[in-house]
């Protein structure tokens, strides 16, 4: 799904800003994959603006949602630019083909942030833009002084002439540099020359995030803006049956009641009045795709699908025959879904926390009928997403309402609406039948998995033909895809997409979020069946995967694997890579060891987690560490507490009181190590989320002999 072939060359485009200064943009050449019918647009594809005041603005191509992509990308660009880090400010790019991530290949070639490739995807391009700009500034200085460019050196926002000691700032050079032709093939720094890359530089947005000034989607304020909140059919796909518009409009501050797809919105002069208006409106709904569905039926449907695929004949001396089950999960980002829009008769602006700028543009075009030139999408800072803020519906709602009332409007979903209208991590059920030979290694590996099709959400064709490629990565399989890092013989995997009418989507690290629990649990079960030590057993499958072997062994060493523990304590291990179908050098490898305690009364605590990550060159090691810490906590939270259940066709949970997530008191000691590497950077936003899940359940097994095959652990008896 990703293209790591970066042979395309970058050429820079420059223009001057009114009043002097330098604008640098770039485009790909040969082949010109990103050409547009309107060539002028490319001039908008800008990356660097240098003002006469020496302030440097970097226009960054991805959404910022806490993964610190902005800081990492700015470091890469500023490194090659030889900019003074303190003069850097950053903004998120508008919608333009220029900002397509080179790793997003068809059919995923849309301007977006996701897949943990903000750093890896833009690594080459940002370096080239930075280096090319630096060369132009250097050449401008050389020209000004009448000296060879080779005698001039760019450093910390200035160009200096070695012979005379003269120097000029980037701001002073910007206008002259803008008149030069950009280099075809910018000369990049060698890693030994890096001053920023590889250092734990404080994140660019931290100051704004600790004093209330960071501007999230929910913080957008426009002149004359109204507030709206929505009620959508609690049964998925249902329609509005009735509501009491008069009662809603009698509420103070309520200005309008606006129909939206699958629901209705109340518009008022404040969020509070909109909420009160919605309460008075009492909308009733009917119909829907999930009518009558409940969690018991979901389980039955999955089991029926497994049964239809049928059990295999496994003839071996020792056979493992087990079933595993995972629940729907919600993203539960702290910032609920929201979008601000202003549609006039001939223009449209959207301010939205969103991962997919391309979808926002599509939504705006669909609702307004305008051309792209009439539409501006402003990507706001995202207050958590984890894969949720990728859909169009909340953007459409704001557009529809603004078009209706002809004023700017901010739509905010209540937490209840957010919880009950998610794009949930699919439920899943899987059967494993594995026969072991005399040496304890598998001779036959049969696996069936039944779950709603994740891929069909994006590519309906895959739903029609009943093929869900997302069931495959991170599992031991026999499809025509790159292999799993565990080399296993005699594999036969089948899958069955089960259509349940409940929206599903990407939940941090799909498909690992499901398959790593399965694979690493089964590995542990097989080790037990073979009478072998779980770590040693895994290593037997890693002969052809040296990076994985090294990471796994390092995590075990760091955790004191094998050292005796008191009664009621146990250690478990898990490993995965990201993205599982990439070529090996483009992958991130993460292994985690969990140490848990289970009290005599069965109370579980994750005491300590050791994590080792090999992500190539860590551009900002502290960002990598933070991603691992956060991923571990999110994965642990899902393992222990989280599930979305259904009743009467609707989601039962509605807020943080019944969708329990990890709190301070649940948190283990976490130790993260980053493997030293000079390879190109790989992604870290997601791959820390999945290994912790089986690491915890394997640790419970080590501590108690109780094997967890159904998540969440919840109130399951451990002793």
């Amino acid at each position, binding site marked *: 799904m990703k293209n790591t072939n970066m042979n395309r060359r970058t050429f820079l485009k420059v223009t001057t800003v009114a009043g002097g200064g330098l604008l640098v943009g770039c485009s790909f050449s040969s082949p010109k994959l990103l050409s547009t019918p309107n060539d002028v647009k490319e001039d908008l594809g800008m990356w660097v603006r240098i003002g006469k005041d020496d302030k440097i603005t970097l226009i960054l191509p991805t959404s910022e*949602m*806490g*993964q*610190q992509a902005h800081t990492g990308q700015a470091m890469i660009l500023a490194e090659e630019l030889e900019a003074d880090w303190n003069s850097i400010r950053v903004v998120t790019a508008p919608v333009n083909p220029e900002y397509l991530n080179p790793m997003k290949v068809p059919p995923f070639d849309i301007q977006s942030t996701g897949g943990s490739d903000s750093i890896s995807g833009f690594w080459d391009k940002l370096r080239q833009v930075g280096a090319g700009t630096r060369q132009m500034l250097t050449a401008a200085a050389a020209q000004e002084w009448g000296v060879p460019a080779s005698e001039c050196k760019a450093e910390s926002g200035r160009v200096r002439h070695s012979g005379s000691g003269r120097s000029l700032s980037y701001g002073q050079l910007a206008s002259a540099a803008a008149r030069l032709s950009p280099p075809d093939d910018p000369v990049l720094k060698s890693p030994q020359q890096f001053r920023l890359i590889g250092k*734990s530089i*404080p*994140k660019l*947005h*931290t*100051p*704004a*995030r*600790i*004093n*209330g*000034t960071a*501007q*999230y989607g*929910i*913080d957008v*304020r426009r002149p004359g803006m109204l507030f709206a909140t929505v009620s959508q059919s609690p049964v998925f796909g249902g329609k509005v049956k009735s509501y009491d518009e008069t009662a809603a409009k009698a509420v*103070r501050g309520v200005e309008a009641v606006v129909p939206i797809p699958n629901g209705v919105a109340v518009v008022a002069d*404040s*969020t*509070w009045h909109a909420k009160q208006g919605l309460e008075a409106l009492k909308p009733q709904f009917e119909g829907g795709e999930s009518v009558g569905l409940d969690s018991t039926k979901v389980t039955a449907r999955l089991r029926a699908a497994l049964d239809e695929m049928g059990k295999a004949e496994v003839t071996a001396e020792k056979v493992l025959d087990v079933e595993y089950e995972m629940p729907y999960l919600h*993203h*539960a*980002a*702290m*910032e*609920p879904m929201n979008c601000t829009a202003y549609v006039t008769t001939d223009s449209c602006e959207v301010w939205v926390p969103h991962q997919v700028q391309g979808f926002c543009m599509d939504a705006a075009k669909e609702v307004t009928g305008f051309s792209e030139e009439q539409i501006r999408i402003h990507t706001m*800072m*995202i*207050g*958590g*997403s*984890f894969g949720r803020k990728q859909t169009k519906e909340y953007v459409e709602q704001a557009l529809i309402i603004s078009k209706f009332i002809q004023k700017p409007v901010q739509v*905010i979903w*209540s*937490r209840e609406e957010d919880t009950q209208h998610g794009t949930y991590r699919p439920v899943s059920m899987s059967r494993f039948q594995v026969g072991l030979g005399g040496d304890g290694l598998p001779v036959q590996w049969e696996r069936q998995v039944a779950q709603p099709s994740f891929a069909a959400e994006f590519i309906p064709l895959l739903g029609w033909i009943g093929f869900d490629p997302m069931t495959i990565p991170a599992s031991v399989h026999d499809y025509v895809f790159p292999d799993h890092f565990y080399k296993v013989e005699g594999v036969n995997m089948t899958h069955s997409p089960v259509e349940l009418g409940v929206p599903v989507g990407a939940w941090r690290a799909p498909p690992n979020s499901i398959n790593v629990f399965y694979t690493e649990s089964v590995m542990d079960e097989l080790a037990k069946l073979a009478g072998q030590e779980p770590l040693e057993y895994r290593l037997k499958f890693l002969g052809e995967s040296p990076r994985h072997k090294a990471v796994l062994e390092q995590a075990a060493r760091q955790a004191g694997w094998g050292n005796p523990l008191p009664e009621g304590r146990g250690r478990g291990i898990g490993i995965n890579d990201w993205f599982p179908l990439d070529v090996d050098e483009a992958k991130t490898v993460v292994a985690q060891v969990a140490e848990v305690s289970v009290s005599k009364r069965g109370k579980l605590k994750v005491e300590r987690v050791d994590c080792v990550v090999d992500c190539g060159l860590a551009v900002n090691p*502290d960002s990598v560490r*933070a991603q691992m*810490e*956060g*991923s*571990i*906590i*999110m994965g642990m*939270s899902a393992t222990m507490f989280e599930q979305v259940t259904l009743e009467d066709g609707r989601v039962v949970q509605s*807020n*943080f*009181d019944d969708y329990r*997530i*990890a*709190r*301070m*008191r649940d*948190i283990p*000691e*976490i130790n993260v190590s980053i493997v030293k590497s000079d390879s190109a950077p790989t992604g870290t936003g997601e791959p820390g989320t999945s290994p912790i899940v089986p690491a915890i359940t394997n640790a419970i097994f080590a501590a108690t002999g109780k094997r967890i095959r159904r998540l969440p652990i919840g109130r399951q008896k451990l002793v």
Partner: protein
Amino acid sequence: MTTLKINGKQYTLNLEPDTPLLWALRDTVNLTGTKYGCGIQQCGACTVLIGKRPVRSCGITVGEVAGKDITTIEGLSPESRHPVQKAWIAEQVPQCGYCQSGQIMAAVSLLERKPNPTDKEIDRGMLNLCRCGTYTRVRKAIHRAAEMMKEVS
């Protein structure tokens, strides 16, 4: 009409007394640093101080806090130099940052009550939710802030 004293400033607002403080702050006074997360006093993203007490502003009305000293994240210190904010920077706590206004206000209040909190006291005092999972750093930053505040006093 309700008069609120927020960050040392008086605001006379045309609001019904049963308006939750959260929405008065965000939509009327335009202090958007205080965040909406759940509306049912579960997540703590909307935590502000009433006097020195941490209060979830979604669960208290403007009528109840009229005339009292309300401090929001914007009013914590003029240049983000409160020891808790400095500690938050030193530990690079925020990921997405959305919950951090509430985390910081809760931590300020915890340190008022427990100038040298143990891990257990932090567990009990910090009930704010963070989906990014910054808890380990929140804990470290609270310990660091406690040290910094000792040095000052």
